[in-house]
């Protein structure tokens, strides 16, 4: 790469696809944690990580189309995530009170 080209890239900003790639990376890491982790609270946190990754794509597309309405979707995702966290953590509390464990491998009454 010529120095002039590098300077041009430096001044022109960040390509949209870089933001989308970062979003994809965060989403894949979230999926990995969702599958590999055994603690129910950590699994829940990985879901929040995936929601955040999708929010980043929404905001990137809002910037690409120069419209604020794309950012409103992020706003609604945030509200739904808050509601989901409240109900989900209440469910985790109830499960822990009944089963005395947070390991999702031991919460398998429905299996077999």
């Amino acid at each position, binding site marked *: 790469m010529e120095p002039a080209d590098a300077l041009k890239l430096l001044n022109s900003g960040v*390509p949209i*696809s870089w933001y989308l790639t970062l979003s994809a990376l965060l989403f894949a*890491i979230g999926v990995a944690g969702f599958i590999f982790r*055994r*603690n129910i609270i950590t699994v829940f*946190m990985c879901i*929040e990580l995936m929601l955040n990754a999708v929010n980043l794509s929404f905001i990137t597309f809002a910037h690409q189309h120069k419209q604020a309405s794309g950012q409103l979707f992020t*706003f609604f995702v945030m509200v739904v995530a808050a509601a989901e966290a409240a*109900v989900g953590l209440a469910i985790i509390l*109830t499960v822990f009170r009944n089963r005395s464990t947070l390991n999702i491998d031991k919460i398998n009454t429905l299996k077999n």
Partner: protein
Amino acid sequence: MDIFFFLLFAFIALIAAVNVVLQRHPISSALSLVGVMGSLAVLYLLLGAEFIAMAQMIVYAGAIMVLFVFVIMLLNAGTEERTGRSWLAQIFGVPAMIALLGLLCFFAYKVFPNAGFVKFGDFTGGGAKEIGYALFTDYLLPFEVTSILILIAIVGAIVLARKELD
């Protein structure tokens, strides 16, 4: 300058996200997740979404993560115990993950090869005024439905978490 800030905070976000998955103690995972959310808020600022960046810090990094930390302390959750994984996850887990990542990146580059550049200051329609205007004109019905959703979530959380009275 844009590219420097993007790379710095994208790097922090990725390191913290990997840390969320690798840490064995839930509290360490929760604090790493706060790091992810903070660096994502800076990226939102770079994308011109000022209101959403503030909401991200207050709602996500503030309220939701405090809820998580409360529950972790309430349940006295310790280090995660290792249990045997299914052979399916052991063999196909990592390749499936890489395939998913490759597919997402493929679409990002295939559909948006020259989608343009993100430059700080190009788009200034993300302030509280513009968001509020759009929220209370075009998106009034979803906004009101959201309030009902939150009401249901409050009632549901109280019903689920209360002690049984006999």
